[in-house]
């Protein structure tokens, strides 16, 4: 909708980042080609421009990287914690110094708005390394026994929605506890992990402590099933998480899984509506809804349904969708053509099942992968859009009458990752939070993260916690 004052374009400069035409795998401190010479291209989701060509790891490369990590483990785990801490502090500092560059790179490769990479992702990435750096020489005090030992080689597979942040969540606690790492970033967002490899070099991290293998699911599978990997950490889909849980059965590999979600955002009739609407928008449209803990089910008390929906639609009509590098952009591109197709199919299912669709009136760019902020009303709990994780900017709106009904509906999901509560009544917040089967509950706020705060799910949202003191357990032998 046109207004009297249009925003002028305010693009962030691409000049701060120098993307090479090709990249290798990072194994034992060196960039190297894949053993079979395979490569793949990574494109910018907002323009479909090819950004670079990247080596595609296969089973032989996984084996080489695991061997390098195993070799490095002996010395790295034997280092005094205070020395490991200093390496992590160095990495944290270099990330801060290069955060502008990394933010632009992440926006180019992922499609998310620069506003989010600059103000959310990168500060959190640095903060995670700072936080876990401080743990490295204090593990005796973490509550896992007097002399907690690392597990060995950690095989880590991360998704494309927060490439650098997920890397930080995985690598920082692994290194702090004395493990070495082989990490596989997602095939659509390989670049920031390779830039991180360069940061490891700048920090003087010993060779083989961190290894980065860019590649597809086959490389991830080879990594988690490698017999010499002691710890598997995975963030991604529930389907793949289940496959990993099956593949480690009967081994002594320790596993943490951060999987899907279908978070309920519960709005009571006494909630401050304007703040709640902002929270709903943050809950489902942050990062184009490509967030496992997104508040993708809005549960609104019947008496304020119309008021909330009117305010929400009004707010969504002001969101600016477009060039992710523009500092005023709220909604960027969907990460890949494949993901866009998945979102589109689920939304079509929602319409076919009789839910009522409303999409924000905005013009979609002619190239790239885009999806307008969308919400469904007339949704019941049986609808696909209320049950399946869509992983896109699509909100399903349901109603409730009593707190008990809100809790029952919120918990009526195979998932249990996140939930939101909006009400002015403190006792109601505590009563409802107590009954929700979810790992993270945001009351009168949503989608907040912090390295000191454990994050992870109940039920089929996976097991284990990342972040905080709890996040150390995943990388320590605490049996």
């Amino acid at each position, binding site marked *: 909708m046109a207004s009297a004052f249009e925003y002028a374009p305010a693009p962030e400069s691409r000049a701060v980042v120098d993307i090479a035409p090709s990249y290798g795998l990072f194994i034992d401190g060196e960039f190297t080609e894949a053993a079979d010479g395979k490569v793949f291209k990574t494109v910018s989701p907002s323009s479909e421009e090819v950004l670079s060509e990247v080596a595609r790891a296969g089973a032989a490369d996984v084996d080489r990287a695991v061997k390098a990590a195993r070799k490095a483990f002996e010395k790295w785990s034997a280092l005094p914690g205070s020395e490991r801490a200093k390496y992590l502090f160095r990495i944290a500092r270099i990330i801060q110094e290069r955060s502008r560059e990394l933010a632009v790179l992440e926006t180019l490769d992922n499609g998310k708005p620069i506003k989010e990479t600059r103000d959310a992702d990168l500060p959190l990435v640095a*903060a995670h390394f700072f936080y876990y750096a401080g743990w490295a020489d204090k593990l005796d005090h973490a*509550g896992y026994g007097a002399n907690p030992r690392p597990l060995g080689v950690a095989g880590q597979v991360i998704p494309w929605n927060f490439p650098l942040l997920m890397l930080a969540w995985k690598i920082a606690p692994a290194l702090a506890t004395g493990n070495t790492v082989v990490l596989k970033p997602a095939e659509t967002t390989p670049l920031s992990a390779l830039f991180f490899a360069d940061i490891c070099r700048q920090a003087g991290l010993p060779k083989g402590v961190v290894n980065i293998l860019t590649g597809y699911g086959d490389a991830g599978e080879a990594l988690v099933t490698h017999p010499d990997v002691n710890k598997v950490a995975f963030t991604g889909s*529930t389907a793949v*998480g*289940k*496959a990993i*849980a*099956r593949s*480690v*059965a*009967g081994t*002594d590999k320790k596993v943490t*899984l951060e*999987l899907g979600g279908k978070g309920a955002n519960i709005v009571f009739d006494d909630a401050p509506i304007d703040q709640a609407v902002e929270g709903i928008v943050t809950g489902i449209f942050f990062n184009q809804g490509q967030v496992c803990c997104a508040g993708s089910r809005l549960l609104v008390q019947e008496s304020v349904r119309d008021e909330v929906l009117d305010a929400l639609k009004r707010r969504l009509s002001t969101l600016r969708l477009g060039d992710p590098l523009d500092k005023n952009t709220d909604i960027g591109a969907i990460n890949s053509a494949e993901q866009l197709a998945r979102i589109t199919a689920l939304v079509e299912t929602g319409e076919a099942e009789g839910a009522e669709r409303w999409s924000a009136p905005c013009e979609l760019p002619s190239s790239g992968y885009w999806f307008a902020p969308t919400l469904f009303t007339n949704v019941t709990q049986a609808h696909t859009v209320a049950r399946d994780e869509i992983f896109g900017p699509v909100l399903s709106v349901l109603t409730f009458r009593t707190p008990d009904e809100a809790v029952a509906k919120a918990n009526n999901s*195979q998932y249990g990752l996140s939930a939101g509560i909006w009400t002015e009544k403190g006792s109601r*917040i505590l009563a409802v*939070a107590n009954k*929700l089967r*979810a*790992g*993270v*509950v*945001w*009351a*009168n*706020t949503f989608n*907040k993260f*912090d390295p*000191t*705060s*454990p*994050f*992870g799910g*109940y*039920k*089929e949202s*996976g*097991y284990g*916690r990342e972040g*905080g*003191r*709890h996040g150390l357990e995943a990388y320590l032998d*605490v*049996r």
Partner: protein
Amino acid sequence: MSDNNRLGVFKTYKLYVGGKFPRSESGRVYEVSDSKGQWLANAPQSSRKDARDAVVAARKAFGGWSGATAYNRGQVLYRVAEMLEGRKDQFVREVAASEGLSKSKAAAVVDAAIDRWVWYAGWTDKIGQISGGANPVAGPFFNLSTPEPTGVVAVLAPRKSSFLGLVSVIAPVIATGNTAVVVASADAPLPALSLGEVLATSDVPGGVVNILSGVTAELAAPLAAHQDVNAIDLTGADTALAKELEIAAADNLKRVLRPGPADADGGADGGADFADWTASPGTHRLTAFLETKTVWHPTGALGAAGSSY
């Protein structure tokens, strides 16, 4: 008539499900013998249907038990120790017969099991302080992590340690507010079935602990695959069965506590059967069946004029 001429009264052992003592719905029993092969009793041979019924009972009990105060749960666990103390002789006889122990060794095992209930009774209102905490996030938020029970836990009791091992796997599960479906040792189920009678008189609400006897693999398979079971403790499974069950458990991402590593003299079938149940248990059996919930709330501010103190 002297005691020597008196005909003893045998006991009909029954399952413990939902606070009641049913026979197996299948009507089956199997012979239980002592370590020398002498017949001791017929134990019910539970069916898959019995296992599913036990899950229903455990689910029904979960809301009340997990919602009870930690103080109350501690009182109830301590009450179990009190009841056991009073029936010590019976358990010494059953353990001695089941495990082929001398009366004095069996008495030591039973004492240790009673003390274990006391130990876990004390944990109910402390584990939250040990494994939870306030998180100092970088922003104006009140942020608290608290542990919560994961739900219905299927417990495969150790095969060899019929009582101390059994208590060591049940008590931590219910201390934290979970409910349990326990598959007793197939060879030595009698102390487990008698424990049911103790639990029934110890203020443990019906359904919080459900005890099945029978063929472990037959009962464990439907429990591992059950969509309404949240976690499984594989202690009593051998290596091959444990792997099979862990694969089945992946279907709904159950929390899995694997059997411990085989001991040095190499129990060929591995598992925790060779575990030293007299050793200090540590907290890992408590934390294995806990979820961490983190709640965020804005703190707001009192404005610039507000004094710090």
